[in-house]
């Protein structure tokens, strides 16, 4: 036996001399434009005919790009690029064959419609107006891009009914599936009028061109080009992946924000499967927001306007539903977040009721929810919203006050709340994760910062994100201590080193509305995952050496 293995080993070495040192890419080439020569930072995407999978690499210095081996199988590929200001002249497609590296040189030309390429962040940069005026627009991105506003022709009067109509839409609304809010909400006419007037100064109501210069962010360069991005198209436009995470078996799970389905993707094959759960409140918006695992590997969903939580047993592939009981359940009941990670400690799962600006706690055995308002002590006129949630090993809750500027703690034993204001006022902390040391990392949505709260010493740290107007939605600290962040506006994934504040932003191939992000620490290097909430796709991002 020993002899056999030795022989086999030497044959392998001879068969592929130097293969380990210089792998041969399956597709490579150079990107250039007539007006600028070779271009760095151009995203080159290849999608095989009939496949739901698109693979993207980024050109480096001298415009050279190369797909790593193993990423593309033989076949006919459609090619696409992303480089703000440019469009692809050609070629539009290429054949990739086994064993032979394909070579393709891409020619770009200047776009005649730059506005169609702007991210929400770039629109924010371009719009004139005060920070206060722009702040009102950050909610718009939940359902649509800012380009939609910029291209409209409404004057202030015409905007008023539009704004009113939009307050009537549920949060879990996408363009492909608009859902009405079941309970009426206030329409603050005077504030809406101010917004309407502002919107009429940034759109096309007064002419055919925008009365300001369109600002753009630079193309990726250096480290930001050392990346390969894989996109998995989901089979319906009405799939709105919100929270995404991988499991120990290599499957990717996601919550669908607008339909009562839990989705599962096998990234190795592209196979996709959905698990439906029943409607609890007919006529109410469907879909769930948060997807979180418990200690036993079950997946839990916060069912939004369906009012309750769902527990999915991954082994038996069955749901157990926990509707909010009658006394607490009304037309505006909305569970958006939850943390079941330590429910086995005391039998309780933390969740929220958005409209009541409160925390709810489910007793799993009885199915009853308990209402805990952590803000009973604070001024009632203030807006609060317990949002991102994590629990420690004793199942004490840490939540983000998305309506205001606090990290809150609710004691599992006494139910007593402690409120910790963030260093930055009006930071609106959003989603959160707890690292192995028990530190709470979070995105400061309205502050363009990411933060960390260390419960042991009850202290905060904050870091500015590199690009203003990105409005961080979520963060994830990976096993190497790098902090990742995703957002709804910049089409960029941020990787920040908390030790020195240095960061890299990776541009994504398509307009991408990111919500919950996830980093798979089991791979080397780590793998970043997110959903495109408005684009029915799952995104994988891997770093190249």
């Amino acid at each position, binding site marked *: 036996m020993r002899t056999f293995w030795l022989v086999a080993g030497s044959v392998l070495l001879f068969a592929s001399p130097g293969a380990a040192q210089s792998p041969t890419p399956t597709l490579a080439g150079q990107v250039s434009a007539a007006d600028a020569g070779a271009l760095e930072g151009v995203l080159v995407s290849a999608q095989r005919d009939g496949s739901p999978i698109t693979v993207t690499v980024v050109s480096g210095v001298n415009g050279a790009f190369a797909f790593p081996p193993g990423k593309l199988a033989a076949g006919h590929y459609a090619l696409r690029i992303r480089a703000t200001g440019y469009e692809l002249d050609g070629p539009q497609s290429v054949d990739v064959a086994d064993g032979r590296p394909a070579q393709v040189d891409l020619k770009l030309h200047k776009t005649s419609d730059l506005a169609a390429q702007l991210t929400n962040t770039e629109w924010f940069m371009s719009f004139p107006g005060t920070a*206060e005026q722009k*702040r*009102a627009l*950050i*909610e718009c991105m*939940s359902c649509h891009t800012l380009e939609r506003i910029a291209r409209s022709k409404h004057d202030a009067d015409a905007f008023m009914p539009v*704004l009113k109509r939009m*307050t009537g839409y549920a*949060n*879990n609304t996408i363009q492909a599936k608009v859902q009405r*809010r079941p309970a009426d*909400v*206030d*329409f*603050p006419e005077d*504030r*809406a009028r*101010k*917004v309407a007037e502002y919107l009429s100064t940034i759109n096309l109501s007064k002419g055919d061109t925008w009365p300001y210069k369109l600002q753009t962010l630079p193309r990726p360069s250096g480290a930001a080009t050392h990346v390969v991005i894989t996109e998995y198209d989901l089979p319906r436009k009405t799939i709105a992946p919100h929270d995404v995470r991988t499991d120990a078996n290599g499957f990717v799970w996601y919550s669908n924000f607008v339909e009562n389905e839990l989705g599962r993707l096998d990234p190795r094959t592209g196979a996709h499967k959905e698990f439906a759960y029943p409607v609890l409140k007919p006529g109410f918006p469907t879909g769930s*927001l948060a997807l979180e695992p418990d200690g036993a590997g079950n997946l839990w969903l916060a069912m*939004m306007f369906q009012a309750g939580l769902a527990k999915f047993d991954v082994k038996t592939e069955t749901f157990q539903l926990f509707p909010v009981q009658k006394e607490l359940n009304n037309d505006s009941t*909305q569970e*958006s977040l939850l943390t079941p990670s330590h429910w086995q400690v005391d039998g309780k799962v933390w969740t929220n009721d*958005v*409209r009541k*600006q409160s925390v709810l706690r489910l007793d799993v055995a009885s199915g009853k929810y308990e209402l805990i308002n*952590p803000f*009973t*002590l*604070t*001024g*009632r*006129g*203030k*807006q609060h*919203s317990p949002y991102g949630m994590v629990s420690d090993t004793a199942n004490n809750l840490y939540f983000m006050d*998305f*309506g205001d*500027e606090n990290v809150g703690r609710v004691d599992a034993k*006494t139910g*007593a*709340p*402690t*409120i*910790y*204001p963030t*260093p930055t*006022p*009006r930071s*609106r902390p959003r989603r959160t994760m707890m690292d192995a040391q028990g530190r709470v990392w979070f995105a400061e949505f*309205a502050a363009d910062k990411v933060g960390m709260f260390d419960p042991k010493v*009850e*202290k*905060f*740290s*904050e*870091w500015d994100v590199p690009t203003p107007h990105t409005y961080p939605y979520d963060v994830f600290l990976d096993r190497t201590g790098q902090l990742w962040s995703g957002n709804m506006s910049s089409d960029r994934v941020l990787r920040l080193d*908390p030790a020195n*504040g240095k960061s890299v932003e990776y541009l994504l191939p398509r307009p991408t509305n990111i919500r919950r992000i996830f980093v798979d620490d089991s791979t080397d290097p780590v793998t970043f995952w997110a959903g495109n909430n408005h684009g029915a796709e799952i995104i994988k991002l891997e770093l190249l050496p």
Partner: protein
Amino acid sequence: MKFLTAKKFPTPKEYLRACLAVAAAAALAGAVSAPVWAGGSSFGDDDEEADEGPAYFGFVRDTSGNSIPDAKVTVGIKNRGGVVTRSDALGTYRVPGFGKDVDTKEVDVSCEKEGYKQLKTFRRTPANAANVPIVETECTLQKG
């Protein structure tokens, strides 16, 4: 990266103005609008301060009167929870008001810092003062 600094804090004048504005708006609208979000505030964030009692403000000092930055300050109500913040570079802390229904007499201000023990807290604002915009408390820590 920076550590906790003072939180925004209205001057008494700003505070009263905000109160009046909100009271007027509430009288017109009949109700204070509730948030709409998954979600966000509806059309910009209006920092409404209705029904808010006095804010809490003060200094953390050592026995020689030197200010102590980065001390943990707890503004709490017995058995009901509270707000935890830290003193800034000047040794001051600021916490916005609790609800009007919270009796300021029940609110306890305490401070801690490693290497120190709390000696006393002295409330400059008399406990029986009515409708004050701020309750000012000085917290003294002793080395050792």
